[in-house]
C-alpha cells in the first residue's frame, strides 16, 4: 500500500520539479512580500495631517500647538481662520484633524479655569479617527501636566504632588512598539496560508481538466493513497518555504526571536499539513482551475488576513468575528508564531494550539476523502 502512495508522491515531485519557474515563484514571491513589508511598509500611524484654527493667538495657544508640531504623530499642515474652512479641509482629505482653539484660551488658563478645545476628526476611516483622537488626548494630557506643574509651583506646593496618581508603563515583547516586529512574523502565517494552498488547490482539478483524473480513478490506489501521495511533496515544499522565511526573518531582518525554534518548526509542519489539506478539499470540489483559485482566495487567504488577529487582539472582534477566528488554523498558528518570536514562555502553553491544528488537519483530510469519493461514483 505504501508503494502506491510513494509512487504518486514521486510523480507529483517530478511534475513539480519540471516547472522550475512555478516552484521558484513559490519561494521567491513570499520572500519578496516579506522584504517589502519588513523594510518599507509601516503600519504605524504617524505624521497625521492636522490643521489649527487659533482664535487666541497668544503665547498660551502657541505653546499648546507646539505640542502637536513637536510630536511625531502629527504634521501641522495649515492654520485656518473659520470653521467653514476647517470643514472643507476635512472634507477634501487635506487634514484629518482640526483643532479649534477659542479666543479666550489664554485668558481662561491664566485665570486657572478649564477651557474647551474643539477637536474635529475625519471619521471616514474609523480606526484612524480613533487613533487621531487618542493622540490628541495624549498630547493634551501632556500639556495639562505642564500647566499643572507650573501652577502648583506658583501656589507654592510640592511638585511631587503634580499628578496624585501616576502611571508607570512598561512594554513587554516589543518594547520599541514597531509594527515590523509583529507584521513580519504575522505575514509568515499569512504567506503560508497563501502559497501552499494555491499550489495544492490545483492538484486534483488540473487532472480533472486534463482528463488524467480517470487514470487515478481506475488505478488500484486508494483515496487515502491519492490524497497523501499528492499532499506529501507539497507539505515538504511548504515546510521548506517556512524554513526560508524563518531564516530570512531572523538573520536578514534581525528580528527578535526568543522562543523555541523546534516548537515553532513542529507547529509550522502541522500548519503546512492543514493548509495543503485545505487546498486539496478545494481542489476536489472544484470543476475548473479558476474556481479553485477563487475559492482559495475566499476560503483560505482572505479569512486568515481578516480574522487571525494579525493587527489587533482577537478579543477586539465581535462574536461573529471571534467565531470565525476560532474556525481557521491561522489563528492558532499565529498564536504560536507570535509566542515564538516575541514572547518565549514554556512549550506547554502552546499545546492547545497544536491540538487545534491537529483536529483541523483531521477534519480537512476527512472532508477531502469524502469529496474525492463523490466524484468516483
Amino acid at each position, binding site marked *: 500500500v505504501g508503494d502506491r502512495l510513494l509512487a504518486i508522491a514521486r510523480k507529483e515531485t517530478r511534475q513539480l520539479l519540471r516547472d522550475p519557474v*512555478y516552484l521558484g*515563484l513559490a519561494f521567491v*514571491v513570499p520572500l*519578496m*512580500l516579506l522584504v*517589502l*513589508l519588513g523594510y518599507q511598509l509601516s*503600519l*504605524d500611524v*504617524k*505624521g497625521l*495631517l492636522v490643521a489649527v484654527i487659533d482664535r487666541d493667538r497668544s503665547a498660551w495657544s502657541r505653546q499648546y500647538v507646539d505640542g502637536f508640531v513637536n510630536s511625531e504623530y502629527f*504634521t501641522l499642515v495649515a492654520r485656518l481662520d473659520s470653521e467653514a474652512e476647517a*470643514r472643507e479641509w476635512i*472634507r*477634501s482629505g487635506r487634514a484629518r484633524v482640526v483643532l479649534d482653539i477659542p479666543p479666550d484660551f489664554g485668558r481662561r*488658563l491664566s485665570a486657572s*479655569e*478649564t*477651557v*474647551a*478645545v474643539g*477637536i*474635529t*476628526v*475625519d*471619521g*471616514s*476611516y*474609523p*480606526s484612524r479617527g*480613533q*487613533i487621531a483622537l*487618542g*493622540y490628541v488626548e495624549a498630547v493634551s494630557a501632556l*500639556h*495639562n501636566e505642564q*500647566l*499643572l506643574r507650573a501652577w502648583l509651583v506658583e501656589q507654592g506646593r510640592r511638585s511631587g504632588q503634580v499628578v*496624585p496618581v*501616576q502611571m508607570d508603563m*512598561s*512594554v*513587554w515583547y516589543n518594547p520599541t512598539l*514597531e509594527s515590523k516586529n509583529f507584521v513580519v512574523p504575522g505575514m509568515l502565517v499569512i504567506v503560508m496560508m497563501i502559497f501552499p494552498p*494555491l*499550489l495544492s488547490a*490545483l492538484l486534483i482539478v488540473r487532472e480533472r481538466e486534463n482528463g488524467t483524473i480517470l487514470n487515478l480513478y481506475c488505478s488500484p490506489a486508494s483515496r487515502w493513497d491519492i490524497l497523501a501521495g499528492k499532499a506529501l511533496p507539497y507539505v515538504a515544499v511548504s515546510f521548506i518555504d517556512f524554513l526560508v522565511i524563518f531564516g530570512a526573518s531572523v538573520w536578514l531582518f534581525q528580528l527578535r526571536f526568543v522562543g523555541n525554534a523546534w516548537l515553532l518548526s513542529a507547529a509550522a509542519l502541522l500548519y503546512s499539513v492543514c493548509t495543503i489539506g485545505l487546498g486539496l478539499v478545494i481542489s476536489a470540489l472544484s470543476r475548473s482551475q*479558476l*474556481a479553485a*483559485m477563487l475559492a482559495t482566495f475566499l476560503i483560505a487567504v*482572505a479569512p486568515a488576513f481578516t480574522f487571525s488577529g494579525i493587527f489587533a*487582539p*482577537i478579543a*477586539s472582534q465581535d462574536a461573529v*468575528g471571534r467565531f*470565525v477566528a476560532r474556525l481557521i488554523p491561522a489563528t492558532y498558528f499565529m498564536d504560536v508564531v*507570535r509566542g515564538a518570536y516575541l514572547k518565549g*514562555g514554556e512549550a506547554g*502553553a502552546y499545546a492547545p494550539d497544536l491540538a487545534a491544528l491537529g483536529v483541523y488537519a483531521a477534519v480537512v483530510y476527512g472532508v477531502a476523502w469524502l469529496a474525492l469519493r463523490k466524484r468516483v461514483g
Partner: protein
Amino acid sequence: MRRRLLALIRKEFSQLFRDVPMLLFLVWAFTGAVYTSGHGGGTELRQYPIVVLDLSQGPSSRELVSRFRAPYFKLVAQVWSDDEVVSRLDRGEASLAVVIPPDFERRAQEATARFQVISDGSQSMSATLAAAHIRSIAYRYSVERLVALPGFTGRGIPRIDTRPRVEYNPNLVETWFSSLLEVFTQTTMIAMLLAAAAMVREREHGTVEHLLVSPLRPLELFAAKLVPVVTLVPLAALTSVLGVVHGAFETPIRGSVALFYAVTLIYVFAMASLGLAIAALARTLGQAMMLLLLIFYPMTLLSGAFSPPESQGTLMRTVGVLSPVRHYVDFAYQVLFKGNGLAYVWQDVLGILGLGVALFAISVHRFARLVR
C-alpha cells in the same frame, strides 16, 4: 469585423457562465465574504482585554479600576499574583495588565500614588492606543483627586478639556468601513483574476494559436477578454454596496451612486488590464495567481486603507501613486461616505483612467511581442 468581435465576446461570456461553482464563489465574494468581514477586527481599541492585579484593595484603587471599562477595555480577570499576570500575558489572554501596589491607598492620600501598566507590545498599534487611553484615564482621575485635596476650596486649576466631534461616522463604526473595504478588495482581486484566467486558459490549452491565426487583431482580442469582466464585476460591486454594506449594515451612502458606478467601471477596466499584463508573463494559472498576489498584497496594504499615506516613507508614497487601488480607495470613501462630487475626486479619477489606459497598452504590447 463587428460580428467577429461579438462572437468572441459571446464565447467569453458562455465560458464564464458554464462554470457554476465558480459563479457561486463569485456570489459569495460579494455577499457572504463582505458580510463576515464586517465583523473582523479593525485596529481600533475595542474590548481590549486587560487583567488587574490589585494588591491595595482600597476605595481609591477600586475607583481607578472601575474606569477601565467598555467599550475600550474588557476586564478579563482579577488576578492575585505576579505569576498569573505573566502567564495571562504570555498566553495572550490579556493584552495589558494593571498592577496596583499595596501602598496605593496610603500614597493616594498623600497624592504620590503610582501604579504600573504592563502592555503587550506585540500588536503595536492597539498597544499604543491602549497606553494613550490609560494615560488619560489616570490623568483625569488625578485631577479629580487633586481638586478634592484640602486646600483646593472652590478654585479651579488650569486645564484643557478636549471636545471631540467626529465627522461622517460619529460613533466610529468600524463595520461601515471594513465591509466597504472588502467590496473593494473583492472587486480588485476578481477583476484581475478573471481577466488573467481568460488569457492563461487559452495559453494552457494551446488555443492561443487559433486566435492568432484568426483575423482578429490583438486589440480586439483583448477587448473581448475584458468585456465580460467589466460588465459583471462593477455590477456585482454595486449590488454589494447597496445590498450588504447599505442594506445589512445600514451604512449611510451620502454620495452619487451613479458616479461610484461609473468610476468603478473604469477601475475594473484598469485592474483587468493589469490581470492581462500578468497573464502575458505566466504560462499557467498557478503562476499567474502567484504573480497576482505578489502585486495584490502590497497594493492593498499601501492603498491608504490600513495606514494613511502620510505615514509612509517617500519611496512607498511614490509607489503608492502608481497603484490604481490607492486612487480608487480614496475616491470611493470620499464619494460614498463624504458625499463628495467630481470637484473633489477628479484627480483620483484621472489617475485611475490614466493607469488603466497605460496598463491596457502594456498588456497589448506585451502580447503582441509574444506573438512574434
